[in-house]
């Protein structure tokens, strides 16, 4: 049976798929940016100013502060099966095409055995998915959830949650700039050593956004915006502010060639403007999610985001770059053309994932984040009670 949204958090699922659509758009545009299209670079900077923090905020919105009575090992097993197992599966899935198209993987020379050794070690020991870059989020959210498991006994009051959120943001920001030895991108260089980074550096900032989501829910923030007029009003105000603010974030970024927030590389730029644009943009998407929460199609896609999310790697690694190189001479650096190209390519890519999503849901639900489901091939990996 296909999973679908429950009424209570239907808008979260819809917001999630809207965020994923933004991610597809961002990755399509990134390839165009790499061909030298300056307009695409501005679109990229705009999307990246908030789209990844959105996923952390949405996860936090669904998080609980109640203490878990089931114990550490069960929790770890559940999270590993629903985060790390799909990470491993989608890495395996995208590793196979590299045997035919070896030149398409980032930072790896896959014409040699050394290249594969480095890629596999970085993926499974370093915790950075070299064969499927977008899935870094699965590792990061896994670490964030472990942090939350450890910290939630201290989140007894709203003040303590806000306090932890602010302090961990400061620690995350300072570490992102000064603790570069913890940055998993160190592995990408020709002399990069493989160490168990596991996105720990970015998990600190991610956890701050996660706690912000928790605070939003605790405050009942969206209850103040129940009418459509208020929702549209808030969404446009937030979007206007993001448009106004995103390019004011001029760094300093830790990646010199990316003048934009890149959470995968812990490059945030200005530590004050970054969270402001991230929060405003995320609220705008969440409001859009509320406005569109009646859509059955979006609900269906929103309840199956893990597969759509992870399959973005296929386009990121194999089709976006060649397509961008092909279209580049014909595409003017005009905002509308770039936007239409981005929407068409990302929409098509997203549509192509739906058959795979249906097959995965039907045959191997245990491997795509639902370990407690009985399937036709594999048994349930986790007792539902746990």
């Amino acid at each position, binding site marked *: 049976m296909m999973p679908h949204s429950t009424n209570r958090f239907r808008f979260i699922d819809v917001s999630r798929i809207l965020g994923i659509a933004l991610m597809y758009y961002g990755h399509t545009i990134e390839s165009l940016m790499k061909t030298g299209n300056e307009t695409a*670079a501005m679109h990229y900077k705009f999307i990246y100013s908030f789209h990844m923090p959105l996923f952390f905020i949405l996860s936090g919105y669904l998080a609980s502060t109640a203490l878990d009575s089931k114990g550490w090992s069960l929790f770890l097993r559940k999270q590993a099966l629903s985060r790390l197992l799909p990470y491993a599966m989608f890495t395996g899935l995208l590793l196979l095409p590299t045997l035919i198209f070896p030149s398409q993987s980032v930072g790896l020379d896959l014409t040699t055995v050394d290249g594969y050794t480095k890629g596999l*070690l970085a993926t499974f020991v370093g915790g950075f998915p070299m064969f499927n870059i977008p899935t870094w989020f699965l590792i990061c959210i896994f670490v964030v959830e472990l942090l939350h498991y450890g910290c939630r006994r201290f989140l007894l009051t709203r003040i303590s949650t806000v306090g932890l959120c602010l302090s961990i943001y400061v620690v995350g920001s300072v570490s992102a700039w000064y603790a570069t030895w913890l940055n998993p991108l160190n592995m990408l260089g020709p*002399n990069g*050593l493989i*160490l168990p980074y596991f996105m720990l550096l970015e998990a600190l900032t991610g956890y701050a956004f996660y706690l912000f989501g928790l605070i939003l829910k605790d405050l009942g923030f969206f209850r103040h915006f129940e009418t459509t007029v208020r929702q549209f009003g808030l969404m446009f105000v937030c979007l206007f502010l993001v448009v106004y603010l995103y390019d004011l974030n001029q760094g300093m970024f830790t990646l010199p*060639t990316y003048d934009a927030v890149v959470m995968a590389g812990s490059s945030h730029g200005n530590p004050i403007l970054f969270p402001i644009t991230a929060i405003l943009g995320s609220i705008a998407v969440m409001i859009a999610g509320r406005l569109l929460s009646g859509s059955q199609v979006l609900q269906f896609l929103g309840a199956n985001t893990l597969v759509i999310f992870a399959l973005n790697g296929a386009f990121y690694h194999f089709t976006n770059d060649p397509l961008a190189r092909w279209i580049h001479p014909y595409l003017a650096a005009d905002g509308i053309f770039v936007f239409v190209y981005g929407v068409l390519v990302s929409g098509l890519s997203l549509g192509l994932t739906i058959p795979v999503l249906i097959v995965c849901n039907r045959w191997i639900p245990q491997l795509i984040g639902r370990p407690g489901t009985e399937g036709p091939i594999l048994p349930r990996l986790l007792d539902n009670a746990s």
Partner: protein
Amino acid sequence: MVGIAVIGVGGLIHYNLNTYRNQYEPRIYTLMPTKELVLTIEGNPEYTFDTALLTFHSVGRLLKLSPSYFSGRYDDWESRSDRSNQSTTVDYVRPVPETLSSLGTIRDTDTVTLRLQRRDKTRIAELRHQGPYASIPESILRLKQFIASRDHDIHGFYEEVYLIFEAMEQDPLKFETLLRFEVRPTSKIAGE
């Protein structure tokens, strides 16, 4: 499970030891395309280096560029090594983001010409040189031998990427410089 863990840890140790041991060995690989800020300066490289350093610092502040390494790019190694020539033209280069579309109000000076350009995908041979600049020729000889042994040919620029240099480190023995030649496979030349 234990077997997989043993293979994983064994592979990790082996890979890291190998990488650590080979960090000063030459290699051939491909640089990804990027946008660059280029300062063309004519003069004695002993002095133009300082001019480039100061200019990058000032321009970086004006354009709000994030910190980055920079390099000196020459037409060929000979133009770098010829100390009798007091007026070598050098392109000092640093990567910049794609969003940087113009240099704004920054203008050329009598000695420095600035421009933005794109560097395409480039195949290079590279060696990490540790020590003073005076010992670079020995490393160049080693790099050239390596290029020939890998059936490649020098075809294009010679570049020095300054990782650790005098502005950061007093002791020349601790300087680190990446030495690069643009190369292409010999078979490609024969096929032309």
